[in-house]
């Protein structure tokens, strides 16, 4: 199995990010990329065909008129191993998708190939947040909080000022901060909690509801406004609901006109491939780049976090012992 295709496949195992356009389901993108990669892999030159030994009989006229029979041993290629007969070498490729994006939203979507799927699981378990840019519009309310849904209500929005909006955003962020401390399983009155909070590296421990770890207003031009969020364990629907709630808090209503993910863990917008670039060589290059940056990144990060979790566990054990 030393063929060139296998060698190419080894170089393909890893993570890369694509830019998902709005209005497309992520499954369609995954399937399209799988087909592209399979096409690239199978177009690699096949192994040299296996030969079989055949004996070709030959009849030669001897010098004295007698015939002489000889057999010549030759090697003939076996057609049974031709790629057109056996089918392509790679028929299926394991392409996994990181944190999903629904059809309405767009942005960075992380995909993993082959062994990269294990790294994908690591990425999900690592304590990273995701950045979103969410666009909203005041004055409307729909059933599914997006501007394409069925219209429920129209409201006025003249009374809203940027100060109002920022006050409401601060309030929402406060309540989320509180939830973050609750779910990070750390004693609020400890020194450790203080240090983590100062560094901004508090992270929910285990399962948690969606939490916004950061929220700010990027632009405010009534009726349009843009928010930037950092979140954990979110879905895009939750983000649209946040926009809806912002509208309600401001004594108006708001719908979400676009959700765009600008960062997923270490994958930023710069590294994401737009749909013209979803070809085999470009994906291979992107995977190589990401592996390079991953290797540079990994030795630094996990140490403090591991310590923290250990401490927490020890503390819990101690508590259990006292009980």
């Amino acid at each position, binding site marked *: 199995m030393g063929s060139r295709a296998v060698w190419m496949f080894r170089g393909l195992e890893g993570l890369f990010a694509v830019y998902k356009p709005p209005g497309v389901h992520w499954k369609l993108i995954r399937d399209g990329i799988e087909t592209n990669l399979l096409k690239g892999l199978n177009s690699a030159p096949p192994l040299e065909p296996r030969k079989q030994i055949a004996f070709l009989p030959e009849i030669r006229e001897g010098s004295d008129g007698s015939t002489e029979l000889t*057999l010549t*041993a030759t090697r003939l290629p076996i057609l*049974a191993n*031709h790629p*057109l007969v056996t089918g*392509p070498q790679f028929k299926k490729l394991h392409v996994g998708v990181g944190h999903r994006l629904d059809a309405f939203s767009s942005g960075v979507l992380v995909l993993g190939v082959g062994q990269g799927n294990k790294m994908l699981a690591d990425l999900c378990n690592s304590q990273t947040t995701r950045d979103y840019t969410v666009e909203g519009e005041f004055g409307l309310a729909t059933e599914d909080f997006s501007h394409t849904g069925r219209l429920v209500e129209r409201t006025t929005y003249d009374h809203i000022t940027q100060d109002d909006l920022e006050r409401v955003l601060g309030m929402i962020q406060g309540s989320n901060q509180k939830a973050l401390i609750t779910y990070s399983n750390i004693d609020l009155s400890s020194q450790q909690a203080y240090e983590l909070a100062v560094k901004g590296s508090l992270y929910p421990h285990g399962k948690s509801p969606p939490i916004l770890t950061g929220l700010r207003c990027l632009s405010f031009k009534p009726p349009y406004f843009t928010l930037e969020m950092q979140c954990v364990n979110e879905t895009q629907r939750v983000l649209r609901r946040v926009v809806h709630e912002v509208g309600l808090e401001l004594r108006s209503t708001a719908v979400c006109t676009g959700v765009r993910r600008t960062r997923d863990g270490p994958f930023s917008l710069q590294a994401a491939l737009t749909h013209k670039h979803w070809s085999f060589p470009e994906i291979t290059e992107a995977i190589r780049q990401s592996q390079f940056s991953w290797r540079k990144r990994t030795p630094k990060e996990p140490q403090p976090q591991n310590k923290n979790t250990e401490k927490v566990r020890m503390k819990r054990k101690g508590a259990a012992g006292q009980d």
Partner: protein
Amino acid sequence: MDPKGKKRKMAEHDDRVYYNGFISGVCVRLGQSRAVRRYSDLVGEEQGPTPGDSEENRLIPNPALTELPFPNLPASQEGLDGAPPLSPFEEICDEEALQIVALPPLPPSAPSLRDYVDQSETLSTLVHLGVDLSKLQARRGVGSLLLRLGLKDLQDRLLFLRDLGLQEPQLGPLLTHNPFILTETLHNLRARVLYLQSKRFRLEDVGSMVSRAPYLLSFSVQRLDNRLGFYQRLLQLSPHKTRDIVTRLPRLLCGSLEPVKENLKVCELELGFRPNEIQHIVTTIPKLLTANKKRLTETFNYVHNTMGISHALIVKFPSSLLCIRERHLFLRYLGKAQYDPALPGYLPLDRLVSLPDREFCCQLASASLQDFELFQKTL
């Protein structure tokens, strides 16, 4: 017990390739004298003279080996025309004995064509042509069809296709798509080509149509006539224009007609085009007839209602009904989205659609390709 399981079993059963003993394509090459004996014999001979020296390497046949017992003979030899049935007691000389090829018997049924490829002249010819046997054997009944096919039949069909002007690299994909063309009689095939020629399609056009729509020649003359008539009647086109759209998009003749009817109704009732406008659009872009109905209405909705392009302008540039969303948004972002020919800064819609990305960026948007890509990441 359950009907589902039964069905699956039957399907599995059907997928197998059957070999009935009589395969004219399986050709034991007597003339070309290729002899493979059993493995034990090979091993015995390999031990004799060391391989490597060229002239001395000629192996002298051992009479005990060449006069192999008859049960080793494949059953297929009996089916070969011209080969007289051999009796086990007949005396044969060395030369004759050498001609006898003791191939391992072909399996009566096999999961794939792999087991037959090396011994069937037809299949190996197909592989050399570039026909994907692995795809064909997945289709029901096609494996057995190919095995039953004679070399002569294959040659006739290939020569016929060559006469239509098809080049060798086109034949492989064509036969991969439609292997049933090999089972049609030559008389039928000729009649269909003659029919198309009588409708004043040129022969090279017929060839290119066949290569783009491989099932074209599997349709009977009656059916082809019906379908050509359908397009001519439905669109009220002149014979010349019908010929034109069919030549440009031959899959119109092979596909289902129902979606075409639906698309025309959608154009007329939902999108509000007049019949003569539809005629013009269809003759410019026949692809719209087979487009997805939902997609078509969505694109029209975007072009007409969001971009604000009138019906008249769409009719003038029907290619605007293909996807142009990203480019329009980019131009709008740059403040250059102006498609009205009466106003300054006019950009023709057809160029907007048809130009490749690089030319679009430098000619219409006067921006760099990187800018366009960065913009795509903000959508």
